Protein backbone atom coordinates (compact mmCIF):
# COMPACT_ATOMS: atom_id res chain seq x y z
CA UNK A 1 0.00 0.00 0.00
CA UNK A 2 1.33 3.37 -1.01
CA UNK A 3 0.92 6.36 1.27
CA UNK A 4 0.28 9.33 -1.00
CA UNK A 5 0.70 12.87 0.22
CA UNK A 6 -2.35 14.83 -0.97
CA UNK A 7 -1.32 18.49 -1.32
CA UNK A 8 -4.51 19.46 0.56
CA UNK A 9 -5.11 16.61 3.03
CA UNK A 10 -1.67 15.23 3.80
CA UNK A 11 -0.68 11.56 3.79
CA UNK A 12 -3.51 9.16 2.99
CA UNK A 13 -3.68 5.51 1.91
CA UNK A 14 -3.56 4.74 -1.79
CA UNK A 15 -7.13 3.36 -1.70
CA UNK A 16 -8.45 6.92 -1.31
CA UNK A 17 -6.95 7.94 -4.67
CA UNK A 18 -7.67 7.47 -8.32
CA UNK A 19 -4.99 7.31 -10.98
CA UNK A 20 -5.13 9.61 -13.98
CA UNK A 21 -2.16 8.51 -16.09
CA UNK A 22 0.60 10.67 -17.50
CA UNK A 23 0.50 14.37 -16.61
CA UNK A 24 1.10 17.29 -18.95
CA UNK A 25 -0.58 15.68 -21.98
CA UNK A 26 -2.21 18.68 -23.60
CA UNK A 27 -5.48 18.37 -25.51
CA UNK A 28 -4.75 19.09 -29.17
CA UNK A 29 -5.34 22.70 -30.22
CA UNK A 30 -7.47 21.56 -33.17
CA UNK A 31 -8.37 17.83 -33.05
CA UNK A 32 -9.95 18.03 -36.52
CA UNK A 33 -6.62 19.00 -38.05
CA UNK A 34 -4.99 15.76 -36.87
CA UNK A 35 -4.54 12.62 -38.92
CA UNK A 36 -5.95 9.43 -37.47
CA UNK A 37 -2.46 8.42 -36.49
CA UNK A 38 -1.81 11.71 -34.67
CA UNK A 39 -5.17 11.43 -32.88
CA UNK A 40 -4.34 7.85 -31.87
CA UNK A 41 -0.97 9.04 -30.62
CA UNK A 42 -2.72 11.62 -28.45
CA UNK A 43 -5.34 9.21 -27.14
CA UNK A 44 -3.40 6.03 -26.55
CA UNK A 45 0.34 6.56 -26.54
CA UNK A 46 2.07 7.41 -23.28
CA UNK A 47 5.65 7.49 -22.05
CA UNK A 48 6.87 4.48 -20.13
CA UNK A 49 10.02 5.66 -18.40
CA UNK A 50 12.15 3.69 -16.00
CA UNK A 51 12.47 6.25 -13.21
CA UNK A 52 10.72 9.56 -12.57
CA UNK A 53 7.28 9.81 -14.13
CA UNK A 54 4.96 12.84 -13.85
CA UNK A 55 1.42 11.58 -13.42
CA UNK A 56 -2.04 12.73 -12.38
CA UNK A 57 -3.83 11.57 -9.26
CA UNK A 58 -7.20 12.48 -7.78
CA UNK A 59 -8.02 12.29 -4.09
CA UNK A 60 -11.41 10.79 -4.88
CA UNK A 61 -12.32 9.62 -1.35
CA UNK A 62 -11.11 12.84 0.28
CA UNK A 63 -11.02 16.39 -1.07
CA UNK A 64 -11.78 15.22 -4.65
CA UNK A 65 -9.06 17.46 -6.09
CA UNK A 66 -6.75 16.51 -8.94
CA UNK A 67 -3.02 17.03 -8.53
CA UNK A 68 0.24 15.89 -10.08
CA UNK A 69 2.95 13.70 -8.60
CA UNK A 70 6.41 12.62 -9.68
CA UNK A 71 6.75 8.92 -8.94
CA UNK A 72 9.73 6.70 -9.51
CA UNK A 73 8.41 3.75 -11.53
CA UNK A 74 11.19 1.50 -10.16
CA UNK A 75 10.74 2.20 -6.43
CA UNK A 76 7.20 3.64 -6.33
CA UNK A 77 8.64 6.46 -4.27
CA UNK A 78 6.83 9.76 -4.79
CA UNK A 79 9.41 12.54 -4.88
CA UNK A 80 7.07 15.48 -5.22
CA UNK A 81 3.39 16.41 -5.41
CA UNK A 82 2.31 19.65 -7.03
CA UNK A 83 -0.85 21.42 -8.14
CA UNK A 84 -2.65 20.56 -11.36
CA UNK A 85 -1.74 23.18 -13.95
CA UNK A 86 1.70 23.81 -12.47
CA UNK A 87 4.66 23.02 -14.72
CA UNK A 88 6.66 19.89 -13.98
CA UNK A 89 9.18 20.78 -11.26
CA UNK A 90 12.85 20.23 -11.92
CA UNK A 91 13.92 17.74 -9.25
CA UNK A 92 17.60 18.27 -9.99
CA UNK A 93 17.32 21.63 -8.25
CA UNK A 94 16.61 19.90 -4.93
CA UNK A 95 13.55 20.00 -2.71
Amino acid sequence: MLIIDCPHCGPRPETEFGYGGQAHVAYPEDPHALTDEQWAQYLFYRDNPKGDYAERWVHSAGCRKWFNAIRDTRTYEIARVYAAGEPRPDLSKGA
Partner: protein
Amino acid sequence: MTDSTLTIEAPEGAAGSAGGAGGTNASASGADVGRAAVLAHRRSPAQDLADEMTQGSGQAVWLRELPFLTQVTLRAQPDGPSSEALAGALGVGLPTRVGEVAGAIDGIGVAVLWLSPDEFLAVAPDEAQTGVSPEAWAGRLSTAVGAGPGQVVDVSANRTTLELSGPRARSVLEKSCEIDLHPRAFPVGTAVVTLLESTGVIVWRTGEETWRVMPRASFTTHVVRWLLDGMREYC
Protein backbone atom coordinates in the same frame (compact mmCIF):
# COMPACT_ATOMS: atom_id res chain seq x y z
CA MET B 1 -58.03 5.52 -10.33
CA THR B 2 -56.65 6.22 -6.89
CA ASP B 3 -56.81 9.52 -5.10
CA SER B 4 -53.44 11.20 -5.61
CA THR B 5 -53.98 13.76 -2.87
CA LEU B 6 -51.53 13.25 -0.03
CA THR B 7 -53.17 13.90 3.31
CA ILE B 8 -50.94 14.11 6.36
CA GLU B 9 -52.52 14.00 9.77
CA ALA B 10 -50.91 15.94 12.59
CA PRO B 11 -49.64 13.45 15.14
CA GLU B 12 -50.80 13.60 18.77
CA GLY B 13 -49.11 16.38 20.71
CA ALA B 14 -47.42 17.91 17.68
CA ALA B 15 -46.41 21.54 17.91
CA GLY B 16 -49.17 23.86 16.87
CA SER B 17 -51.95 21.36 17.49
CA ALA B 18 -52.90 22.90 20.83
CA GLY B 19 -54.90 25.75 19.34
CA GLY B 20 -58.11 23.77 19.20
CA ALA B 21 -61.28 24.78 17.43
CA GLY B 22 -61.98 28.43 16.98
CA GLY B 23 -58.33 29.50 17.15
CA THR B 24 -57.95 33.13 16.19
CA ASN B 25 -54.90 32.58 13.98
CA ALA B 26 -56.26 29.71 11.96
CA SER B 27 -54.00 29.97 8.90
CA ALA B 28 -50.70 30.29 10.79
CA SER B 29 -51.57 27.47 13.18
CA GLY B 30 -52.61 25.37 10.21
CA ALA B 31 -49.18 25.86 8.64
CA ASP B 32 -47.49 24.91 11.92
CA VAL B 33 -49.57 21.77 12.17
CA GLY B 34 -48.68 20.92 8.59
CA ARG B 35 -44.95 21.34 9.13
CA ALA B 36 -44.96 19.47 12.43
CA ALA B 37 -46.81 16.65 10.72
CA VAL B 38 -44.26 16.54 7.93
CA LEU B 39 -41.40 16.41 10.44
CA ALA B 40 -43.12 13.66 12.41
CA HIS B 41 -43.41 11.53 9.28
CA ARG B 42 -39.76 11.68 8.27
CA ARG B 43 -37.88 8.40 8.17
CA SER B 44 -34.14 8.41 8.77
CA PRO B 45 -31.71 6.06 6.97
CA ALA B 46 -30.91 4.03 10.12
CA GLN B 47 -34.37 4.14 11.67
CA ASP B 48 -35.06 0.47 11.04
CA LEU B 49 -31.76 -0.44 12.68
CA ALA B 50 -32.44 1.33 15.99
CA ASP B 51 -33.16 -1.92 17.86
CA GLU B 52 -30.14 -3.66 16.37
CA MET B 53 -27.96 -0.74 17.45
CA THR B 54 -29.34 -0.85 20.99
CA GLN B 55 -28.85 -4.61 21.22
CA GLY B 56 -25.36 -4.40 19.78
CA SER B 57 -24.21 -1.71 22.20
CA GLY B 58 -22.61 -2.24 25.60
CA GLN B 59 -20.62 -0.53 28.35
CA ALA B 60 -17.46 -0.30 26.27
CA VAL B 61 -18.93 1.07 23.07
CA TRP B 62 -22.37 2.08 21.91
CA LEU B 63 -23.89 3.21 18.63
CA ARG B 64 -26.91 5.35 17.79
CA GLU B 65 -28.16 7.53 14.97
CA LEU B 66 -28.45 11.30 15.27
CA PRO B 67 -31.05 11.69 12.55
CA PHE B 68 -32.06 14.67 10.46
CA LEU B 69 -29.17 17.03 11.13
CA THR B 70 -29.29 20.02 8.84
CA GLN B 71 -26.39 19.85 6.35
CA VAL B 72 -25.58 22.51 3.81
CA THR B 73 -22.73 22.27 1.31
CA LEU B 74 -20.86 25.51 0.71
CA ARG B 75 -18.53 26.14 -2.21
CA ALA B 76 -16.38 29.26 -2.08
CA GLN B 77 -12.79 30.17 -2.85
CA PRO B 78 -10.89 30.71 0.39
CA ASP B 79 -10.18 34.37 1.09
CA GLY B 80 -12.66 35.39 -1.62
CA PRO B 81 -15.67 37.66 -1.05
CA SER B 82 -18.07 34.70 -0.88
CA SER B 83 -16.00 33.05 1.85
CA GLU B 84 -16.15 36.22 3.86
CA ALA B 85 -19.91 36.56 3.36
CA LEU B 86 -20.50 32.92 4.35
CA ALA B 87 -18.26 33.19 7.39
CA GLY B 88 -20.24 36.23 8.51
CA ALA B 89 -23.64 34.66 7.88
CA LEU B 90 -22.67 31.46 9.71
CA GLY B 91 -21.37 33.42 12.67
CA VAL B 92 -18.64 30.82 13.29
CA GLY B 93 -16.29 31.46 10.36
CA LEU B 94 -14.99 28.86 7.91
CA PRO B 95 -12.30 26.26 8.61
CA THR B 96 -9.07 26.89 6.74
CA ARG B 97 -7.32 23.51 6.54
CA VAL B 98 -7.90 19.78 6.47
CA GLY B 99 -9.41 18.38 9.68
CA GLU B 100 -10.46 21.73 11.06
CA VAL B 101 -14.00 22.32 12.37
CA ALA B 102 -15.22 25.88 12.87
CA GLY B 103 -17.85 26.61 15.49
CA ALA B 104 -19.29 23.83 17.64
CA ILE B 105 -16.47 21.29 17.49
CA ASP B 106 -18.51 19.02 19.79
CA GLY B 107 -21.37 19.10 17.28
CA ILE B 108 -23.77 20.79 19.70
CA GLY B 109 -24.73 23.89 17.74
CA VAL B 110 -23.60 25.09 14.33
CA ALA B 111 -20.35 23.64 13.01
CA VAL B 112 -18.59 23.99 9.68
CA LEU B 113 -16.44 21.11 8.43
CA TRP B 114 -13.59 21.37 5.93
CA LEU B 115 -14.20 19.04 2.98
CA SER B 116 -11.79 20.51 0.45
CA PRO B 117 -9.95 23.83 -0.05
CA ASP B 118 -13.10 25.37 -1.52
CA GLU B 119 -15.83 23.13 -0.12
CA PHE B 120 -17.31 23.11 3.37
CA LEU B 121 -20.19 21.40 5.16
CA ALA B 122 -22.29 23.42 7.58
CA VAL B 123 -23.97 21.17 10.14
CA ALA B 124 -26.80 22.43 12.36
CA PRO B 125 -29.29 20.69 14.66
CA ASP B 126 -32.50 19.07 13.46
CA GLU B 127 -35.28 21.43 12.48
CA ALA B 128 -37.52 19.68 15.03
CA GLN B 129 -35.30 21.14 17.75
CA THR B 130 -34.56 24.56 16.32
CA GLY B 131 -37.59 25.37 14.21
CA VAL B 132 -35.21 26.43 11.44
CA SER B 133 -35.60 24.30 8.34
CA PRO B 134 -32.68 23.23 6.11
CA GLU B 135 -34.26 25.28 3.34
CA ALA B 136 -34.23 28.35 5.58
CA TRP B 137 -30.57 27.72 6.44
CA ALA B 138 -29.63 27.31 2.80
CA GLY B 139 -31.69 30.34 1.84
CA ARG B 140 -30.00 32.55 4.39
CA LEU B 141 -26.53 31.44 3.32
CA SER B 142 -27.41 31.73 -0.34
CA THR B 143 -28.58 35.29 0.24
CA ALA B 144 -25.26 36.03 1.91
CA VAL B 145 -23.32 34.79 -1.13
CA GLY B 146 -25.65 36.77 -3.41
CA ALA B 147 -24.29 37.11 -6.92
CA GLY B 148 -20.74 36.32 -5.80
CA PRO B 149 -18.94 33.21 -7.05
CA GLY B 150 -19.96 30.27 -4.90
CA GLN B 151 -22.64 27.71 -4.22
CA VAL B 152 -24.98 26.81 -1.36
CA VAL B 153 -26.95 23.55 -1.49
CA ASP B 154 -29.11 21.83 1.11
CA VAL B 155 -27.72 18.28 1.32
CA SER B 156 -29.38 17.24 4.59
CA ALA B 157 -30.73 14.07 3.00
CA ASN B 158 -27.35 13.10 1.54
CA ARG B 159 -25.75 11.77 4.70
CA THR B 160 -27.00 10.62 8.06
CA THR B 161 -25.02 10.83 11.28
CA LEU B 162 -24.06 7.85 13.40
CA GLU B 163 -22.59 8.41 16.83
CA LEU B 164 -20.13 5.88 18.18
CA SER B 165 -19.24 6.41 21.83
CA GLY B 166 -17.39 4.76 24.67
CA PRO B 167 -13.91 3.78 25.77
CA ARG B 168 -13.55 1.28 22.88
CA ALA B 169 -15.10 3.48 20.18
CA ARG B 170 -11.70 4.38 18.76
CA SER B 171 -10.66 0.71 18.70
CA VAL B 172 -13.74 -0.10 16.64
CA LEU B 173 -13.02 2.67 14.15
CA GLU B 174 -9.34 1.78 13.92
CA LYS B 175 -10.24 -1.65 12.58
CA SER B 176 -11.55 -0.06 9.39
CA CYS B 177 -10.10 3.43 9.17
CA GLU B 178 -6.53 3.74 7.93
CA ILE B 179 -5.84 7.29 9.03
CA ASP B 180 -4.30 7.94 12.43
CA LEU B 181 -7.08 8.44 15.01
CA HIS B 182 -4.76 8.78 18.00
CA PRO B 183 -5.49 12.02 19.96
CA ARG B 184 -2.00 13.20 19.04
CA ALA B 185 -2.99 13.28 15.37
CA PHE B 186 -6.78 13.49 15.69
CA PRO B 187 -7.82 15.61 18.69
CA VAL B 188 -11.41 16.45 19.64
CA GLY B 189 -12.83 18.80 17.02
CA THR B 190 -11.16 17.11 14.05
CA ALA B 191 -13.23 15.97 11.07
CA VAL B 192 -12.04 14.44 7.80
CA VAL B 193 -13.48 12.89 4.67
CA THR B 194 -12.02 9.41 4.39
CA LEU B 195 -12.81 5.73 3.94
CA LEU B 196 -14.28 3.39 6.55
CA GLU B 197 -13.22 0.08 5.00
CA SER B 198 -14.30 0.84 1.42
CA THR B 199 -17.12 3.28 2.16
CA GLY B 200 -16.68 7.04 1.92
CA VAL B 201 -17.62 8.74 5.19
CA ILE B 202 -16.91 11.82 7.26
CA VAL B 203 -15.25 10.92 10.58
CA TRP B 204 -15.64 13.63 13.19
CA ARG B 205 -14.34 13.43 16.74
CA THR B 206 -16.84 15.36 18.88
CA GLY B 207 -15.49 14.22 22.27
CA GLU B 208 -12.67 12.24 23.88
CA GLU B 209 -14.74 9.09 23.50
CA THR B 210 -17.38 10.28 21.05
CA TRP B 211 -17.17 10.04 17.28
CA ARG B 212 -19.53 10.86 14.48
CA VAL B 213 -19.48 8.75 11.35
CA MET B 214 -21.45 10.28 8.49
CA PRO B 215 -22.16 7.86 5.63
CA ARG B 216 -24.30 8.55 2.59
CA ALA B 217 -27.93 7.58 3.16
CA SER B 218 -27.83 4.55 0.86
CA PHE B 219 -24.67 3.20 2.56
CA THR B 220 -26.06 3.57 6.06
CA THR B 221 -27.40 0.04 6.55
CA HIS B 222 -24.04 -1.35 5.49
CA VAL B 223 -22.03 0.99 7.71
CA VAL B 224 -24.25 0.36 10.75
CA ARG B 225 -23.92 -3.43 10.37
CA TRP B 226 -20.19 -3.09 9.71
CA LEU B 227 -19.72 -1.07 12.93
CA LEU B 228 -21.94 -3.45 14.92
CA ASP B 229 -19.79 -6.32 13.71
CA GLY B 230 -16.68 -4.47 14.86
CA MET B 231 -18.31 -3.79 18.26
CA ARG B 232 -19.19 -7.42 19.00
CA GLU B 233 -15.96 -8.37 20.72
CA TYR B 234 -16.38 -5.47 23.19
CA CYS B 235 -20.11 -5.89 23.95
